[in-house]
């Protein structure tokens, strides 16, 4: 195991779910729920001849950022593509709901200090959505997460952390969109339909899934940042995510609400403007939009380092 300094300096993209979970919170504060020793594997995979994992592919637990309890869900893309089934879906829902319980307990116990002790939910998404081996249970779990997120509104911030190999797709794509704050590294991707399916639907000429540069332009973090679907674009280091979460933990709830992209009529109207723009423009490539938002040389943006990009990029102006 890496020591703390190594862990914080290591690539978020390359890290496994447990390393991310440990490193996103303060040193030595993470307690895992249903850890490997509990051996709570999916009961549905063995009959289908599919390998199991002791944590069912999702590391859940609680840690601290200062005095803020952080309820962490961290998905492992290497295990069945990070997909959600009955057990890991249940773990995820339970962990998010615990943040609400903790919020209530803290409010009761420290009414004056709630802001300083306010819990946070951080979900490190690395998933294609529903696990097909237990698809129905996985689908129902998605709805439960959306429901729990709505319960968190205005009480505890829910942060999506996206920067791993698989990205965040399928049903979990809209789960991530439904959070308050989205933090990504350059390698992060969020979408609904995966590139292979788009290619299948539209043809290779229209969308070549093997063209990774195109895939990144369409669903990658820089695009998400430009269209305001990503609040923080950070360097690919676990420590950078840790730092950003600590920052978010201190932001007043009213400000957090402003960082959202969906969740109210006003926000829906704002998104409808973007849809209208896209419908009118019929972009062939995300770069058409980047240019529209004031980036004179859109092709240069993917080549820039995160720091260079943040310096020069022009983003969609939110109404």
């Amino acid at each position: 195991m890496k020591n703390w300094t190594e862990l914080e300096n290591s690539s978020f993209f390359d890290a496994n779910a447990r390393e991310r979970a440990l490193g996103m919170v303060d040193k030595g504060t993470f307690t895992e729920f249903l850890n490997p020793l509990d051996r709570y594997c999916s009961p549905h995979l063995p009959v289908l001849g599919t390998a199991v994992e002791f944590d069912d592919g999702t590391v859940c637990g609680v840690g601290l950022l200062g005095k803020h309890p952080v309820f962490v869900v961290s998905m492992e893309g290497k295990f069945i593509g990070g997909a959600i089934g009955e057990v890991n879906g249940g773990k995820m829902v339970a962990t998010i709901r615990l943040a609400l319980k903790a919020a209530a307990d803290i409010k009761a116990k420290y009414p004056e200090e709630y802001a300083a002790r306010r819990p946070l939910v951080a979900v490190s998404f690395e998933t294609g959505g529903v696990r097909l081996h237990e698809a129905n249970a996985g689908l129902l779990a998605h709805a439960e997460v959306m429901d729990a997120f709505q319960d968190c509104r205005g009480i505890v911030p829910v942060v999506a952390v996206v920067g791993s190999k698989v990205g965040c797709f399928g049903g979990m794509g809209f789960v991530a969109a439904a959070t308050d704050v989205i933090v990504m590294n350059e390698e992060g991707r969020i979408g609904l339909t995966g590139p292979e399916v788009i290619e299948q639907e539209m043809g290779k000429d229209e969308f070549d899934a093997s063209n990774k540069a195109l895939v990144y332009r369409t669903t990658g973090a820089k695009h998400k940042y430009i269209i305001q679907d990503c609040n923080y674009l950070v360097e690919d280091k676990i420590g950078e995510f840790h730092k950003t979460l600590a920052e978010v933990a201190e932001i007043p709830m009213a400000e957090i609400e402003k960082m959202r992209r969906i969740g109210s009529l006003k926000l829906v109207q704002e998104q409808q403007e973007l849809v209208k723009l896209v419908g009118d423009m019929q972009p062939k490539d995300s770069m058409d939009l980047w240019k529209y938002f004031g980036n004179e040389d859109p092709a240069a943006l993917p080549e820039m380092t995160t720091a260079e990009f943040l310096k020069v990029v022009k983003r969609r102006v939110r109404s």
Partner: protein
Amino acid sequence: MALQVLEFEFKSAATQEIAKEWSHLGVTGSGDLEVLMEKKALNGGVKAKVVTPVKGFDAVWEKMLGKFVTDTGVGNVSIEINDDNATPIVVYMRLRQALAEATAKEAE
């Protein structure tokens, strides 16, 4: 079609034991595995349980785990593995890494 569950027991010179009560390493990714080691009073011996989708490699697992026990002299440990088509070298490397992890002092 169902997963194979293989269980083995090994005698060991027991020249070393793991330091932690339990320790975990790895991910059950394609071509990879996770290893859970737990300290157990086994008269110096080693118990191993392997859960894998791969059929017909029981003898290889037994030899591989036996080699690991012989090479390292580890004893009084229960080893549980969830495997997804890992090759022997990956298994062996993960076991060595897991042991290093389990015997390491807590990270600073």
